[in-house]
C-alpha cells in the first residue's frame, strides 16, 4: 500500500504545483493583481502544502499503527492477564503467521482464530483510514493554499523558509545519529562496567571472554569476570600493529609526497598521483587476504631462514600491509601541504644560494611540518580503526607481547570475534564489545581532534 500511496502523493504534488502556478498566472492577468512573487513560487507553495503535512501525518500513522494494532488484536489475551510481555509478542507473531496461512496448533486455537479475524479486519480498516486521512488532508490543504494566493502573500519567502528548515533537518539527521551512537555505546558500556570493574578492564592483563561464554549469565563468578576482560593485551596489540604500520607508511609516504610535490614533472604527477590514490580505494578485505596469503607466509619464511621463530600469523605481516594501505593518506595530504607552502619561500631560499635538497629540508619541511604531522595523526587513527587486515593476518590470540613476529590481536578484531554469530545481549561478553568500541571511539576521536587542531594552526600561518 505504501508504494501506491507515495506515488499518489507525488502525483498530487506535481499537479498542485501546476495548479498553483496556473492560479497565480490567472490572478495576474485577470485582476491585474500585483503578486509579490513569480508565478512558479506559488506553484511550489501549493505543492508544499499538498505534500509536506500529509507526509508527516503518514509518518506518524505508520510509526504508531503497529502498536495500536497489536493492542487491539491481543486485547482478549491481555484481558486474561496471565501472559508476560514476551509471551504476548510471541503470540502476536503467531497470530500474524496464522493470518498468512502458516497454521500452528495450539490450545488457544479459538482465541487465536478470533484474533486472526480481528487482525484482518483492523489491517483493512487501518489501510483505508490511512488513505482517507492522508489524501483528504492533502486535498484540503491544496484548496486552502490555492485560495490563500493573493497579493499579500509572498510565497518566495515561504519557500526559502521551508528550504531552511529542510537543510536544518538534514544536518540534524547526521548529528542525531552521532549522538545516538555515542549514547548507545555509553549505555551498554555502563552496563558492562556494572558487572566488570572499569579498572579490571583498563588494567587487566588477561583477555579471554570465552571463559564467560561457557556459563549461563546467572551463575557467573566474579573471579571469572575479573580475569576475563583485561583489555591491556588488546591495547598493546593495537598499538604494536599501528606502530609497525606507521614505520612503513611514514617514510614511504613522506618521501613520496616530497617527490610528487618538488621533483616530479607535471606529466609524471598526472598519472602517478591517481595510481597512488587508488591504494586508498582498494577494499581492506582485499588487503586482508593479500596479507594473510602472501605477506604472512613470506615473513614467516624469511624469519625462519634467519633462524627466528615466526608464527604463521604475525603482527609484522598485518602491520606491514596496513602500512601500505595508509601510504596514500600520508602521501597525498603531505603532498598538498608541501605544495601549499608559498612559492615565495622556495624562491627566497634559492636566492640565498640553497640547493633543492637544502630548501626542502630546511625551509619546506619545517614550514609544512604541522600539516605533515596532521596527516600522520589521521593515518594513525585510520590504522587503529582498521579491522579486516588484522582479522585475517594477525590472528585472534590475545597475547600480551611486544614481539612483532608473534601473533597479536587488536581492539577491532576482538569486537568482530565477540559479535560474530548469535549473541545474548545481557551477557558481559557481548557488552564488552561496546566497552571496546567506546574506547576505540575515544582514542580515534582524540587523535582526529588533535590532527584537526594541528592542521588548523597550520592554515592560519601564511595570512
Amino acid at each position, binding site marked *: 500500500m505504501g508504494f501506491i500511496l507515495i506515488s499518489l502523493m507525488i502525483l498530487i504534488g506535481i499537479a498542485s504545483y501546476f495548479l498553483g502556478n496556473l492560479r497565480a498566472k490567472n490572478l495576474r492577468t485577470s485582476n491585474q493583481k500585483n503578486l509579490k512573487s513569480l508565478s512558479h513560487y506559488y506553484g511550489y507553495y501549493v505543492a508544499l502544502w499538498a505534500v509536506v503535512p500529509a507526509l508527516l501525518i503518514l509518518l506518524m500513522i505508520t510509526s504508531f499503527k503497529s502498536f495500536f494494532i497489536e493492542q487491539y488484536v491481543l486485547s482478549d489475551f491481555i484481558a486474561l492477564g496471565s501472559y508476560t510481555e514476551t509471551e504476548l509478542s510471541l503470540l502476536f507473531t503467531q497470530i500474524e503467521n496464522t493470518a498468512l496461512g502458516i497454521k500452528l496448533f495450539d490450545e488457544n486455537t479459538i482465541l487465536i482464530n478470533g484474533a486472526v479475524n480481528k487482525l484482518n479486519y483492523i489491517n483493512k480498516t487501518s489501510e483505508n483510514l490511512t488513505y482517507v486521512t492522508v489524501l483528504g488532508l492533502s486535498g484540503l490543504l491544496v484548496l486552502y493554499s490555492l485560495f490563500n494566493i493573493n497579493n499579500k502573500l509572498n510565497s518566495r519567502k515561504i519557500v526559502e523558509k521551508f528550504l531552511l528548515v529542510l537543510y536544518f533537518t538534514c544536518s540534524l539527521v547526521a548529528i542525531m545519529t552521532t549522538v545516538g551512537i555515542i549514547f548507545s555505546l555509553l549505555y551498554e558500556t555502563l552496563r558492562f562496567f556494572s558487572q566488570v570493574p572499569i579498572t579490571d578492564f583498563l588494567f587487566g592483563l588477561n583477555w579471554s571472554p570465552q571463559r564467560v561464554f561457557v556459563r549461563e549469565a546467572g551463575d557467573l563468578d566474579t573471579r571469572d569476570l575479573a580475569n576475563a576482560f583485561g583489555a591491556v593485551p588488546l591495547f598493546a596489540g593495537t598499538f604494536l600493529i599501528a606502530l609497525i604500520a606507521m614505520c612503513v607508511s611514514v617514510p614511504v609516504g613522506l618521501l613520496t609526497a616530497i617527490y610528487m610535490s618538488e621533483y616530479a*614533472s607535471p606529466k609524471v604527477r598526472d598519472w602517478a598521483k591517481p595510481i597512488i590514490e587508488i591504494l586508498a580505494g582498494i577494499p581492506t578485505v582485499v588487503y586482508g587476504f593479500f596479507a594473510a596469503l602472501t605477506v604472512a607466509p613470506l615473513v614467516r619464511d624469511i624469519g625462519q631462514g634467519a633462524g627466528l621463530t615466526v608464527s604463521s600469523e604475525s603482527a609484522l605481516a598485518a602491520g606491514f600491509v596496513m602500512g601500505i594501505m595508509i601510504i596514500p593518506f600520508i602521501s597525498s595530504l603531505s603532498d598538498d601541504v608541501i605544495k601549499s607552502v*608559498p612559492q*615565495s*619561500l*622556495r*624562491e*627566497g*631560499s*634559492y*636566492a*640565498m*644560494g*640553497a*640547493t633543492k635538497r*637544502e630548501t626542502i629540508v*630546511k*625551509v619546506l619541511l*619545517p*614550514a609544512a611540518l604541522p600539516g605533515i604531522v596532521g596527516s600522520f595523526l589521521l593515518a594513525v587513527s585510520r590504522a587503529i580503526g582498521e579491522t579486516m587486515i588484522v582479522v585475517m593476518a594477525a590472528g585472534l590470540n590475545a597475547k600480551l607481547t611486544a614481539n612483532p613476529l608473534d601473533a597479536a590481536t587488536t581492539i577491532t578484531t576482538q569486537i568482530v570475534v565477540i559479535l560474530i554469530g548469535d549473541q545474548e545481549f545481557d551477557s558481559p561478553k557481548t557488552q564488552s564489545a561496546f566497552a571496546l568500541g567506546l574506547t576505540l571511539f575515544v582514542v580515534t576521536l582524540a587523535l582526529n581532534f588533535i590532527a584537526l587542531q594541528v592542521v588548523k594552526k597550520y592554515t592560519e*600561518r*601564511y595570512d
Partner: protein
Amino acid sequence: MKSIKIKADNLNVYYGEKQALFDVSMYMEEKQVTALIGPSGCGKSTFIRCLNRMNDVIDICKVQGKIEIDGNDIYAPDMQVEQLRERVGMVFQKPNPFPKSIFENVAYGPRIHGIAEHKSDLEEIVVNSLKKAALFDEVKDRLNDAGTGLSGGQQQRLCIARAISVNPDIILMDEPCSALDPIATARIEELMGELKTEYTIIIVTHSMQQAARVSSRTGFFHLGKLVEVDKTETIFSNPSDQRTQDYITGRFG
C-alpha cells in the same frame, strides 16, 4: 666614470613560445643604485631575475645572450649557480621571511654556505646584518620570535638582512616596497642609500618617484625592450625617446 659591475649583452629571454625580452644590452656600475622602471609586464622583473639565474627555477624559461659579472659569464657551463646566488642576493616584492625565528632567518645563508665557523661568529654575522638592515634596535630583545610575526616593513628589512648576511657584492630588489606603506617605504629607501656604499644595488620599481629618489642610473623597459638607459636626471628631465617621455609624464603605464 665608475667601474662596471654587471654587463648584459644582447639578452633574449623566452617563456616557452613567448619572447619576454628582446636584445637587452646594458651595464650597471659598482656601488651604485640602478633603477629599472616601466609598465607591468614590460620585462624588468624578468631581466633582474636573469642576474642571479632565478629564472632557472622556471622550466619553460630559456635565456640567450650573455651576462657578465666582474667579467665572468654567469651562464657559463662551469658556473655554480649556488655560488653565484651567494654573491648576488635578492629581495622580493612580497616580504618572504621563512617561518623560523628572526635569528634563524638571518643565519640561514651563513649556515648553508658554512661561512661561520663558531657559534659566536654566527651571532656576530646575524647582529651585523640586522644592524646594516636598520632592524637590530627594533628586534634585539626578541631574536627568537617568529620572523613572520613582524610588521610588513620590518619583514622586508629582515629579508634585506638575510640577503646581506652572506656578504654579497650585489643586491637585486624586485619592487621591494610595493607591499609596504609610505613610512616603511621611506625607511627602505633610506636604507638603500646606506647600503650602496658597500653593495651594488639593482632595483625594479613601479614608482618613478622612487627611481628618481634612490638611483643614479635608470633604465626604462617597454614591451620587453630596453627603450632607454641613462643617468637618472637625464631620463627624468630630458629623455631622448618619445616613449620614455610619455611614460614619465604619465601618458601611459
